[in-house]
């Protein structure tokens, strides 16, 4: 399977994502923000980091970058797009995903392990995943997902909520919400479920020597679904 990771100036999880994708068998290419064409890909990843310094608003300048039109076209034609952390922020800035990511409720950067409950497995990202609560890692200052009531209703009605922050037991409550996200939302899809944006970083959890290994489950499953 071919994947492409977009590098924006200020991206800093591009290498981590490249390592993870290759580890699980993707043939990955790195694509520079100033290019206008994407290589042939089964998956496009917008990695974490601080694209263009996150000046103005997180992800907003990247949302207007040269490469992004190709990403939008790719997504609109049904291609699989994954945005992690800053990548999620960029996806909301392009309008491919609904809502916004505000500053964390405690107005602090948060770096720690969290649990997420997978909400919808009828899509290429999570289909056949054999664990519904994953321990992943977050590292962000603006991960507090917010949208209007109407948007929330349509997200819920269309089953577009990908994952909720939860406890280790899968319980979704205020205690397990790290950043104040509305309804504990950790990640969402577009209507067609070919675009996934989420704050947690699966690529930092791919080895038992690291903070955990549940990221491996995500990548292994994703590759299987694409084959």
């Amino acid at each position, binding site marked *: 399977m071919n994947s492409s990771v977009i590098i924006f100036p200020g991206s800093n999880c591009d*290498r981590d994502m490249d*390592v993870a994708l290759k580890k699980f068998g993707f043939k990955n290419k790195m694509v520079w923000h*100033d290019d206008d064409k994407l290589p042939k890909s089964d998956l496009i990843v917008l990695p974490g980091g*601080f694209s263009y*310094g996150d000046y103005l608003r997180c992800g907003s300048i990247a949302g207007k970058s040269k490469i992004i039109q190709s990403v939008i076209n790719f997504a609109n034609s049904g291609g699989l797009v994954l945005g992690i952390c800053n990548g999620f922020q960029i996806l909301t800035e392009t309008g491919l995903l609904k809502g916004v990511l505000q500053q964390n409720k405690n107005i602090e*950067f948060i*770096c720690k392990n969290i649990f997420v409950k997978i909400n919808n497995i009828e899509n290429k990202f999570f289909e056949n995943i054999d664990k519904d609560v994953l321990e992943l890692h977050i*590292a962000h200052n603006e991960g507090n997902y917010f949208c209007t009531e109407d948007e929330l209703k349509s997200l819920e009605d269309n089953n577009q909520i990908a994952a909720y922050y939860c406890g280790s037991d899968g319980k979704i409550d205020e205690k397990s919400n790290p950043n104040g996200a509305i309804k504990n939302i950790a990640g969402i899809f577009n209507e067609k479920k070919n675009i996934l944006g989420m704050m947690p970083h699966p690529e930092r959890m791919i080895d038992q*020597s*690291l903070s955990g290994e549940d990221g491996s489950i995500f990548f292994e499953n994703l590759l299987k679904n694409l084959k």
Partner: protein
Amino acid sequence: MEVNEKIAVDHGLKPDEYKKICDLLKRIPNITELGIFSAMWNEHCSYKSSRLHLKKLNTKGKKVIQGPGENAGVIDIGDDDAIVFKIESHNHPSFIEPYQGAATGVGGIMRDVFTMGARPIANLNSIHFGSTQHKKTKNLLRGVVKGIGGYGNCIGVPTIAGQTCFDQSYNGNILVNAMTLGLVNKNKIFYSKAAGLNKPVIYVGSKTGRDGIHGASMASAIFDDKIEEKKPTVQVGDPFTEKLLLEACLELMSDKSIIAIQDMGAAGLTSSSIEMASKGNLGIELHLDKVPCREEKMTPYEIMLSESQERMLIVLENGKEDSAKKIFDKWNLDFAVIGQTTNSKNIELYFEKEKVANVPIKFLANEAPMYDRPWKKTKLPQKIKFSNNDFKKLKFNDVIKKMISHPNICSKQWIWEQYDHTVMGDTIQKPGGDAGVVRVHGTKKAIASSVDSSASYCHAHPFTGGKQVVCEAWRNLVSVGAEPIAITNCLNFGNPEKKENMGEFVECIDGINEASKYLNFPVVSGNVSFYNETKDKGIKPTPTIGGVGLIKDYKDLMTMRFKSKGNLVLIIGKTEGNLDQSIFANVILNEKKGPPPEINLFNEKNNGETILKIIKEKLALSVHDVSLGGIVIGALKMCIEGSKGIKFYKFKNLTNIYQYFFSEDQGRYIIEVDKNNLKKVESILKKNSVHFDLLGETTDKEIIINDEPTFTVDKVTEFYKGWLYKYMS
């Protein structure tokens, strides 16, 4: 404007230093030249009070590739890999403007590391604040932590370990020491020594502004008509630009274009250009109109003294300008040829076609003043005689609660959760352990690093304190299973013109040196910060030591968390029961006098090497060194991290439970051992003549002392982890 003695004094120069400048030049310097002299001759750049003593430091070793004198030190970790590292202070700016002060401290030290061709792989920091009761402490702490995080998180380098202390001696002078480690191929290290004539001098990075033109070297006479610009401003950091600069520099470094490279840190363009020329024994010519400026009408004086961040100066091979420029264009960074190397051995500055400065470089570098300042020896304080009455009214459980939630002992999770400690995907020991550990990307190796200081010990007896802090760094590395290799030091002291402060400096260095030699743990880089003094009140002497060690196979990483119940717990090293200068004596008995715990370097080395052997033979399940708070605190931290309890066995030798549990005797470790392996462990310890006692055994949750249950581990965890969150909320 005519320069005179008053203007020189306003620049922080002493009258006799000004006279020396005039004598060397055989004329009166112009204002730009005076600015350059003041920047090069100030304490920060010239090390004039410290140089004499720093020369004594043990800086050599088999694994040392580069010792002090470059942008950072370099050590060999095998297979052509080398680690570049250094610690630096950013104390004064952080007190004035905590966010930007701390942020630019992190930015500056990272530049020092990637200037040498290394990709930064880990950041650490040591921060000291005033009393938790002091009105400024909370805001300073919040600002500094946000600043450190703001910069490091954005660049994408994990912050893997650190140290935080509170003490009223920092009420008016906080300390912010930042350390960076980078990874480089040992055959591709870049240095700051220029070579060759008529080589282009290139300016890259951010534009130059009026920020950071240093207060101490700012003449009041200059800006009389523009009062607003007189305010010394703290530099403002832009981590995004630094990230671009990092990537661009590393890209340029992949071919052979660069002859020498130097970041513009303290004293900006002045010190970077002079340092490169001085090391190459060359002259340098700069055309200041070509320097990219962010503000209008900047004068040569301002351009030379600006401390705008995220800038580099490069001496390039002839003909490489175009290909180099392409790289910087790609990263959207300024690139300007601003001068060339010359054979004049002078620094010659031009501005609007006029020569605005011409000074022999040796006057600025070699002829800088060096002082043998008077200093006073500190006598070893008398030991305190504690009587049994001192302990009678104490309740053991209350004491434990107070100690484990003490600001200088409690968990600093509130801080390190704000630092990205997992980016780059190689952090295998996150903050909260004895040392932070990152893998060397794509290899089996891992690098361990820790930062330590012990200001109370150094204050009580600087010589012993200096030794102790080196040993502490050594022990922290040993505890994670790393072979200690080298250190970097950040020497934070008061006013060197006072003989007490100068004495503290001299004797701490002697102590550092003695331990460093004995442990074969050389100093490869460092920095001195004097004048940490407000209204005549100086800080406690605070040498901060950053240690670096190697784990050959990262799977052999050792951690402090108790692994399972029913295992034996041993205390390695002898417990004498000295309470003087312990946190227990200070906090519980309110006794602040007495000598620090003695350092026995033979035991230190022997115990550490034996622990490494036990780890290597896979006989230890967990290891933790005993430091602040003694055995109980050490063991409880192992309980908390592993979510297990401990049953302490009845102790035999000492009469007093408090002395046994809370003494901070040195050279000790607590280890957890499977019962079946006890014989093997005992035999190694005995063979190496290492003293040990059986301390207890791990339990499911209960913490049992003298056969009586005290707290559960969950309760203790609450005390340990809760304090800082509560304080900051």
